[in-house]
């Protein structure tokens, strides 16, 4: 498996979150998730302004093979979605941790991050 960036936290359902310096967070899916899905052809993103609870449905990602729900690692309000994903969803395959991010949110309680998996713990989940 490829390197997992050390500044990310994970859900065992393969979503990652990064806490930015301004206190907002960015959400995406892991390299392992994109590899399992294969060629991604469509993403349904949340609306800007939408409130989402931690571990509830935030987005849907469809590959040629299957549709999969994406769960929000944290609670909060969506402040931005990745505009690139509408026309180039395949960027999730090539750059899951950078250009392939899904949405940014203003988190309700950054303390929720503590309950998420560290990169090491997430790696262990993937290797099970």
């Amino acid at each position, binding site marked *: 498996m490829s390197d997992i960036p050390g500044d990310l936290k994970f859900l065992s359902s393969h979503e990652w979150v990064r806490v930015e310096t301004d206190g907002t967070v960015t959400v995406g899916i892991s390299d392992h998730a994109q590899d399992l899905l*294969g060629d991604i052809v469509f993403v*349904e993103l949340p609306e800007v302004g939408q409130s989402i609870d931690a571990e509830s449905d935030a987005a849907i990602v469809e590959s040629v093979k299957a549709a999969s729900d994406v769960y929000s690692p944290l609670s909060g309000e969506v402040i931005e979605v990745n505009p690139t994903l509408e026309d180039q969803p395949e960027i999730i*395959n090539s750059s899951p941790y950078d250009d392939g991010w899904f949405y940014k949110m203003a988190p309700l309680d950054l303390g929720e991050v503590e309950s998420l998996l560290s990169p090491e713990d997430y790696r262990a989940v993937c290797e099970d």
Partner: protein
Amino acid sequence: MTEPKKTTLHASHKALGAKMVNFAQWDMPISYSSLMEEHHAVRKSVGIFDVSHMAVFDFNGGDQIGFFEKIFANDIKKIASANKALYGVILNEDGGILDDLIIYHADEKFRLVSNCSTREQNAAWYKKYAAEFGVEVIERSDMGILAIQGPKAVETLLAMDEISDSIKDLETFGCMFEGDHLYARTGYTGEDGLELIVPNDDILSFWNAALEKGCVPIGLGARDTLRLEAGLNLYGNDMTVTHHPYESNLAWTIDTADDSRDFIGKQSLLEIDQSSCQKIIGVMLEGRGVLRPGYEISHEHGQGIILSGTYSPTLEASIGLARVDQGFGKSGKVMIRNKALNINFISPRFLRKGKISS
């Protein structure tokens, strides 16, 4: 659960880094690199598929033509004096589709290839009816199948020492035996190409030679997108034992021209009103999203359901096959996650000879 079965090439697939999937109790490659790249390789160049999970049967002695006239809804007489393959279905007495299959005939010999998941059912079915015609059914579990498909398939095969030049004379659906090897200009992709039905003992050398000549290995994932673009049914999705051929886009494989021929299921088919039964049509999603099996659709005069659905790498849109009430017109709606999206109804043959149908 029992250990999944493996084809002779299983280790080769693993060595190529294939992702494997359990397909009807067989551990098969779903993709090697990217499904999309594999798909385009077949449309633009040439790919090779290991489809050795399919069931191969040979026949010995007796009245084989009489036997096939009885069990096969297409008329075997079409190929009985030619070196050709014939596609069709076997039906139960109610006209339900037991399986779709190809029967090959060359040099007075018949060979049959049917689906993997129906292997035991079919073996029992063939044997049940073969006895009255004095025909021996031989299950060739020692046989494997390679499909080499794409616009460069024939030139690539001709470059292989293992393949004789005479394959270039095969017309579409033509076939020839070389000993126990059967070479046929058939496939499941909508492209030119051949299928090689050869003993497992020889299959690794064919596989390696084809890879060396530039064939791209293709998994079951791209096999599905390729066949769907070509509008070819998949048994289990688009046709099952609870459906008859007329509601499965297979009327063209039902041959009732010979009044004296009484094949299994014929009487039931004759009672079906083809002008009112449901039909399979092609569906294309107007916007973004992906059609999936089970999605409900509606049109001005009725309903329907998506049977097969995927994203078409060639058309860059989602396509599917749907079974619908008649009177469907040109467009309708599909429900995807509680949203009604626009769909267009078109010929199921989305592509013809690798080109977008107009």
